[in-house]
């Protein structure tokens, strides 16, 4: 019995442990272009951090000048001349993540639980400094006896920095970005 409990606890611990962040591939100390496999592993890692509500770890994936953007219109040109569901420069993103950890964030009382599927991952352009990755996602958000379904396309600008892959920018185009929407608190 004791053994059984122990192994169950061990399994739970394994389930909760996130995937390790992808490490840079280097050739004699120089970063090589990001390949399909490392981009995929990175996006799955990011999705898992978000699903596990490890927002501090998610924030750490961004570069010091990284930004996160959820436009309010399809094909929105920029976040400066049109409103956005979310547009966070690094400073605001830090504030957003800090608030998510607050016990007084009433819009997260009770907390949401999310489950995301990321797929259709393709590298759109690639250079020595990084690449732009396009992916599709579906996210279920459960909170207070109801579920919401979100879907859309994400564009990650991924770069090598600080010995790992970092997000220089992330744009998330929701298929229903211009619909009436209830409050959005958990990042996509």
């Amino acid at each position, binding site marked *: 019995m004791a053994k059984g409990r122990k192994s169950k606890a061990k399994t739970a611990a394994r389930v909760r442990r996130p995937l390790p962040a992808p490490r840079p591939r280097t050739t004699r100390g120089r970063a090589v272009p990001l390949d399909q496999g490392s981009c995929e592993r990175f996006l799955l890692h990011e999705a898992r951090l978000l699903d596990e509500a490890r927002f501090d770890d998610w924030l750490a994936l961004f570069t010091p000048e990284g930004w996160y953007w959820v436009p309010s219109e399809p094909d929105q040109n920029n976040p400066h001349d049109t*409103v956005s569901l979310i*547009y966070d420069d690094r400073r605001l993103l830090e*504030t957003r993540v800090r*608030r998510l950890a*607050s016990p007084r964030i009433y*819009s997260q009382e009770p907390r949401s639980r999310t489950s995301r599927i990321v797929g259709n991952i393709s590298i759109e352009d690639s250079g020595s400094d990084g690449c732009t990755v396009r992916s599709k996602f579906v996210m279920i958000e459960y909170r207070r006896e109801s579920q919401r379904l979100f879907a859309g396309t994400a564009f990650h600008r991924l770069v090598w920095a600080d010995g790992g892959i970092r997000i220089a920018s992330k744009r998330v185009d929701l298929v229903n970005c211009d619909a009436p929407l209830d*409050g959005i608190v958990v990042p996509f």
Partner: protein
Amino acid sequence: MTDIEDELSRLIAPGRVHRRLYTDPAIFEMEMRRIFDAAWIYVGHESQIRNPGDYFATQMGRKPVVLVRDNDGTVRVIHNQCAHRGALVVATDKGNAPEFTCCYHGWTYHLDGRLKAVPLNHGYPQGFDPKDPKLAMLQAPRVKSYRGFVFASGKSDGPSLEEWLGHMTTSLDDMIDRAPEGEIEAAGGVFKHAYDGNWKVYFENLCDAAHPLFTHRSSIEAAQQQSDDVHSDGTGEIAIRQMRQNGAPYSFWESQVGIWTYPNGHSYLGDYHDDSKLVAALKDPVFRDYIAALEKNKGKAETKRILEVRRWNSNIYPNVSLMSQFQQLRVVHPIAVNRTVVHTYSFRLKGAPEQMFRNTISFANIVNGTGSLVLTDDLEIYNRLDMGMSSEGAEWLQIGRGYRSDVPDTHGGRRGKNSTSEVYIRNMLDAWLGLMTDRQAAPARAAS
């Protein structure tokens, strides 16, 4: 007074309101007819329909309408419904069209809603007359623009728009006067945020000076703890400054802000900003250019007068609220007794530095954004209000803050002795009862 009117009037008492006002579907249905199909309802801004044929599809209450510029330049508001089988005619949010055609049987309408052509019209019974004025996308009985802000009423009689607005025209003026070239335009897209709750609680929150320190403490604290050394392209800086301002102490909210109310349910809360990057001050280079442009066009004295108008939310009952100092406008769309959608717009001040509009967008994101760190906690409150109000238990809700201490003010108004007085809620309920029971004068029962 009919039985139902008598019943309604018993739901509002001094300093109290019955929760049925927010939860009873039958009352909601009455509101759609007696308020949203009768009072002056904000429809849209003329800059959204600049040229003949430009149209903008929206709603008056639950009724779909089209705001359209006719060929002669006249602004029309027509019911978005085909006179034949009742289908919605205009199915896109906005655009330009020489005429409107129903996609079902091709009935075609002039821009003013009159029927223009009916295919196969020989098939209709004798006496069928396409010129019958009832066979139309019916015009709202009254449409009036106040300096570009278009309102419509489903009633052909009643107070004029200016009589209805009363002193609140000064908030609309403030919106426009702040433009160096004296003109504003709706720009920068729209937020459509939604909640499971009654439409009235939205307005009841906008002038509530007592809630920020409780409701918004997560964003206030997160912003207070944020290092300013971290990179910002300007957006985050505006947002964080705004969140920090919400953390003004209770003594400030209580005594410094000011709450004013006026006949017909209108009100405004005084402004609480002292941040020189958020409100026009010479310390900021963008505002320095802006103030220079204002002074060049309007002179020093008028510029001083304009900048001394300091208002936060101005609520024009029953469906539009302005932040004239921040170029924001919110339109409340009731969907059901427990479902509401709010559309929010930003405005560009003609002749102001372009960076100022970008700051307006950053400001819109944090105060009106669907993913805002601030607004999402307000939406949570609206949801919780509905969950609580819908439950059996306390019948009466308390709206008595400041009840004995409110004081009369100019322009037929009343103001709170303290800024956290709920006088603006009592004032809205007076107007509500006046409209619902079709009395000419508000009974002042809740406010006296």
